[in-house]
């Protein structure tokens, strides 16, 4: 793969108020560093209806700003309503990112044949044979699972000619999903009557060990890393590995500075240490980590 590395904005993982969502995407719509934006609630089906209007307006603003808009499906749909919401995104026929096999069933059978889709990072694609199975069903792009090293991603890309490959390149790592809502549990509430307490923590709620070492972050049914992952691999090596796009996961802090820093880095105008310094100055919710992409423990920060 050659040419300019794309910068994309991943789906917002946190429960932001509708007005904050509108403000964020209005800003992204005018951000020259960003090429593509993934919209939609992927974590909790209860949040989706609250944001439907804000997201629809954001999609219009983003498209008017020249961005490619892709709708992302729920990663762990748990009931009929949530499954219908995912199915509706697929059947709408526009670009869609699939984060659960349930929606793939729909893409393969319910939607017009061969409807192209993006395979999201929540799918278990760990090798080229699995990726090829998705390609047979219309997958045109894979956002690699966060656990994969660059070497593994390169092997997948080599085995899947024509597949566009995107990396989760900035943000708290989405580590786990559950049927249980940890925010509700922490506040002594039940998931079904959660009072949307997760909205108090726009980057997730930090979870520390009993020795006060920051470790994870809870976000409703999702558990993320406390550390903020950064793909700080030289663009030439990324392209050699078949990577064509870097995904930035929305956080509070200066996301315009984050996307600008990645644009400079992707264009070869800054070094890995300069990228990390720019990101650290943009107010990330935790320390930078990069272990996974280098084949190490996810929480490590290696000097790339």
């Amino acid at each position, binding site marked *: 793969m050659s040419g300019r590395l794309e910068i994309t904005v991943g789906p917002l993982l946190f429960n932001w108020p509708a007005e904050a969502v509108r403000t964020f995407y209005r800003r992204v719509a005018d951000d020259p560093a960003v090429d593509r934006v993934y919209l939609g609630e992927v974590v909790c089906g209860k949040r989706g209806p609250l944001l439907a209007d804000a997201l629809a307006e954001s999609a219009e603003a983003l498209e008017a700003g020249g961005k490619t808009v892709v709708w992302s499906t729920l990663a762990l749909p748990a009931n009929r309503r949530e499954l219908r919401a995912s199915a509706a995104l697929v059947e709408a026929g526009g670009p869609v990112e699939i984060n659960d096999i349930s929606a793939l069933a729909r893409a*393969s059978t319910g939607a017009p044949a061969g409807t192209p889709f993006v395979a999201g990072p929540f799918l278990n694609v760990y090798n080229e044979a699995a990726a090829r199975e998705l390609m047979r069903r219309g997958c045109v792009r894979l956002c690699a*699972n966060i*656990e994969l090293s660059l070497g593994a991603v390169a092997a997948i890309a080599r085995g899947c000619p024509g597949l566009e490959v995107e990396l989760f390149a900035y943000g708290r790592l989405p580590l*786990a999903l559950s049927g249980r809502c940890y925010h509700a549990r922490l506040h002594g509430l039940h998931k079904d009557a959660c009072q949307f307490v997760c909205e108090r923590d726009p980057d997730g709620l930090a*979870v520390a060990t*009993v020795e006060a070492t920051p470790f994870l972050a809870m976000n409703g049914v999702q558990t993320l890393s406390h550390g903020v992952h950064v793909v700080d691999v030289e663009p030439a090596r990324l392209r050699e590995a078949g990577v064509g796009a870097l995904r930035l996961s929305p956080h509070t802090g200066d996301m315009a500075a984050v996307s600008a820093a990645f644009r400079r880095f992707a264009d070869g105008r800054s070094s890995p240490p300069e990228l990390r310094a720019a990101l650290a100055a943009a107010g990330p919710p935790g320390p930078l980590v990069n272990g996974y992409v280098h084949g190490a423990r996810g929480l490590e920060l290696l000097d790339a």
Partner: protein
Amino acid sequence: MLRAAVEAGADSVYCGLRDATNARNFPGLNFSPDELAREIEWAHGRGARVLVAINTFATAGGIDPWRAAIDAAAAAGVYAVIVADLGVLAYARERHPGLRLHLSVQAAAGTAEAIGFYAEAYGVRRVVLPRVLSAAEVAEVCRGSPVEIEAFVFGGLCVMAEGRCALSSYATGRSPNLAGVCSPAEAVAFDRTSQALTPRLSGLAIDRLGPEEPAGYPTLCKGRFEAGGATGYLFEEPVSLNAMSLLTSLRDAGVTAVKVEGRQRGRAYVARVAAAFRGAIDALERGEDLAPWEGRLADLAEGGRETAGAYRKRWR
């Protein structure tokens, strides 16, 4: 171990080949292809089925061992293989169309739609459900599923959707999806002082136990952590799953098979658990009350405590 389970009344036993293709890749636990063939013959003589777990995700750029494991299982005449990886499923379907395929819990198929996809695309005949569904959700999945459903009833309790959890690799570098292990033993250490016992994973304290508190295996999601000023078991208590009390509702929901964990356990444990569930299921078939069977395995629970987990809806 396999023989202990069969002699105690198990209808089917999952085992693994001695390599990274199964999710219990521990020394001394699994079979060579020759041993597998011998155990299958033994089990057939007793009317039991042997199934092989090839349920890890194949390594990018190194898929051959998974294909070889499928070939070996097929050659040994197993009743079924249990698989999670799309690429491995595709290989098995294409190369061994007669081989019965079960879908591992690691594939994270928790909806009738997902199950329908695997059934249609790969001819999967049975699906193991994640342990995050309530009994009502299990019933709904069963109603919509074109194939058999299997549910965990005893052993470890994953509180994260299986196959969707990278907590272990974030802390230790190895995880179920990457390496077939969670909170791996080589990363575990215990600090002891006169006041407290601190279990660690890769150096991170994941609990602090007083002298009177029982210490189970330090699994990450069952550790004690701090958030928002509160310290406690934020994800799950150090408990293990026992759904004996839900056998009736699982049967009524349409569940075909119930599964107990065995491969990491001792022979005596496996024999007791298998015998208890055999007895309870037989009692259920005879229309008897299950109350006498409940609590019979309580002393086997991790840290001494057990739960029906997500099967009871208030768990969420």
